[in-house]
């Protein structure tokens, strides 16, 4: 490069006494050029670079690597080596930097990345689903066998009138009652509610080899099973499931995904296979984190559904339609959406 390798430059090369200084003076132009390119890119001024510069970057980077290797073996100019070290590191960070912008990532994530991540942990999804089903059955069976279990399974602040032995009318009023608070309050309360915390915890506790995740899933579903028994004992199964489904399908799916993501991390930590523990953890973690980003979106949706739709929709049929319509949409999105680009 060095548009004018003018006599000045050549003279300097000729005048340099040391062979390593001559090496430096011959290559200095390339270094200054790549430094200018890097500085522009770091400052976010990529648009201002000429096409030539952008195309030259990979070549300049490889030349820089070779310059550094040569300098380390042949030059004792510490200032020069420090400069090359830092310049190479900067160039490396740019050449191997993230290729996407935030916007582009969002498009690819919601346009298929999320679904791929969910499909990638299908084993964990099945495991988590199995534990959730077992949890619900156990909760139901325990309360059916001995009603004292109810108070142990369901946190007290939940269970107002909804306790074993409550009348059918009292129970029904909790399902179809007038909206006592407005949607906003419910939404806000929901976001910080038990279930959002359960989803987050289920994932975070995956670190401990997934054991707490499994316990959490079982316990959480057991209280649901216990509640189901209370309503079922008064012949309100259908109505209760409808009331639950409108937002519960989204919410339970979110908890399932979060639990599966936690198990995925836990399994990678416990059984890393041929990889090192750290490598396995970070591999699993990246997939799991994508799933969790989806879980958070789902929890927000569930909050909106609980805050607004549940209060407005009082018909059981319509509740089923909305709840399972949304569930179908999620499942289609996760498992049927397969854009060609992988």
């Amino acid at each position, binding site marked *: 490069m060095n548009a004018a390798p003018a006599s000045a430059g050549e003279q300097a090369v000729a005048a*340099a006494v040391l062979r*390593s200084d001559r090496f430096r003076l011959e290559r200095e132009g390339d270094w200054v050029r790549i430094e200018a390119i890097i500085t522009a890119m770091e400052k976010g001024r990529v648009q201002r670079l000429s096409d030539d510069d952008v195309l030259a970057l990979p070549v300049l980077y490889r030349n820089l690597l070779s310059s550094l290797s040569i300098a380390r073996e042949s030059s004792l*100019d510490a200032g020069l080596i420090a*400069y090359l070290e830092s310049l190479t*590191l900067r160039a490396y*960070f740019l050449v191997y930097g993230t290729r996407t912008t935030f916007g582009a990532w969002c498009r690819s994530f919601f346009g298929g990345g999320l679904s791929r991540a969910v499909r990638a942990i299908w084993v964990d999804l099945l495991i988590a689903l199995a534990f959730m089903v077992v949890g619900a059955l156990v909760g139901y069976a325990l309360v059916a066998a001995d009603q004292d279990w109810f108070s142990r399974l369901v946190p007290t602040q939940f269970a107002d009138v909804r306790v074993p032995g409550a009348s059918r009318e009292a129970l029904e009023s909790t399902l179809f009652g007038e909206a006592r608070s407005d949607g906003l309050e419910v939404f806000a309360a929901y976001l*910080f509610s038990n279930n959002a915390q359960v989803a987050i915890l289920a994932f975070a506790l995956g670190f401990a080899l997934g054991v707490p995740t499994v316990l959490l899933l079982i316990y959480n579903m057991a209280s649901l099973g216990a509640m189901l028994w209370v309503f079922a004992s008064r012949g309100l199964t259908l109505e209760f499931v409808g009331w639950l489904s409108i937002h519960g399908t989204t919410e339970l799916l979110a908890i399932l995904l979060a639990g599966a993501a936690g198990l995925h991390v836990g399994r990678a930590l416990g059984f890393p296979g041929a990889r090192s523990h750290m490598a396995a953890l970070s591999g699993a*973690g990246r997939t799991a*984190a994508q799933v969790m980003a989806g879980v958070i979106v789902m929890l*927000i949706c569930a909050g909106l559904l609980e805050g607004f739709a549940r209060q407005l929709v009082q018909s059981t049929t319509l509740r089923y339609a909305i709840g399972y319509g949304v569930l179908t949409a999620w499942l289609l999105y996760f498992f049927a959406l397969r854009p060609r680009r992988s």
Partner: protein
Amino acid sequence: MARKGEIGRTHGVDPKLARVLVTPEGVALDVAVASAGARIGALFIDLTALFGLFLGFVLSIVLLVEAYRRTGLPGVSDGFTNFLVVLFIIGLFLARNAYFLYFELGDRAATWGKRALRIRVASRDGGRLTADAVIARNLIRDIEMFLPLMFMTSGGIQGTLGNFGAWAGTIWVGVFLLFPLFNRDRLRCGDLIAGTWVVEAPRAALGEVVANGKTTPSMLDRASNLAEDRYRFSDAELAVYGEYELQMLERVLRTAKPDAMVTVAATIATKIGWSAPDGDDQPFLEAYYTQLRARLERGMRFGKRRADKHS
């Protein structure tokens, strides 16, 4: 830019935090893991920035509402207001994450706080820093810090925060905040999961060629009656020093402080049995530096290196 006096491969880096990163081309590069202090400082700046952005946003909304009220247009229904507040809550959550993601996905892979402290995110295995990794490390930050704090605050406001909840939340946040102190690479849980680490963003200026054969004009003027090559050292006179002393000499020449040069010139002259180059210290030092470096580099080409004067 680094000061020109700061030379040497790992000069000024805590040896406990110095690491080697191997690029996909197989070249080993020196990196320095960001210290815990820098991480905390960056976090603090980011939180302040986020809070400032939040205040600015709320303030502009308040002004907007006030302006709307003054126009005397019909008021909006409660339902609509609620809906807007819900959007606001969701927006807050997303904006916090968007701040970290937007900046860490950029070319500098650093938020404002990290930029201010000259650190950045990088992939631990030397490969490409992927968007997935950045997402992962920031999502975990939510779980480590923001969500427990939010749960605790909202629990506190609603009066449902029990003693147990408060303690559990505090311990939770504390454990995750202190986590980086208990591993060598200062990894946060999010870094562990994402396979990233936070390193110092390098920057150094290219100094001039030391002793480029052109001594400063004033010196030449004053000593114009002296020969160009008045300082010729014999091999035995050059053999007293090694690479470490050469680099110290380089630093003295780069910083070019007159009194330091006088001292160093006198030391070298005594060591090799010359008389001190009275008033002509820089040309003396430059000549000695050039010839010593030529000798050591010649040895280097034949695979002989000499670390310092004792070896």
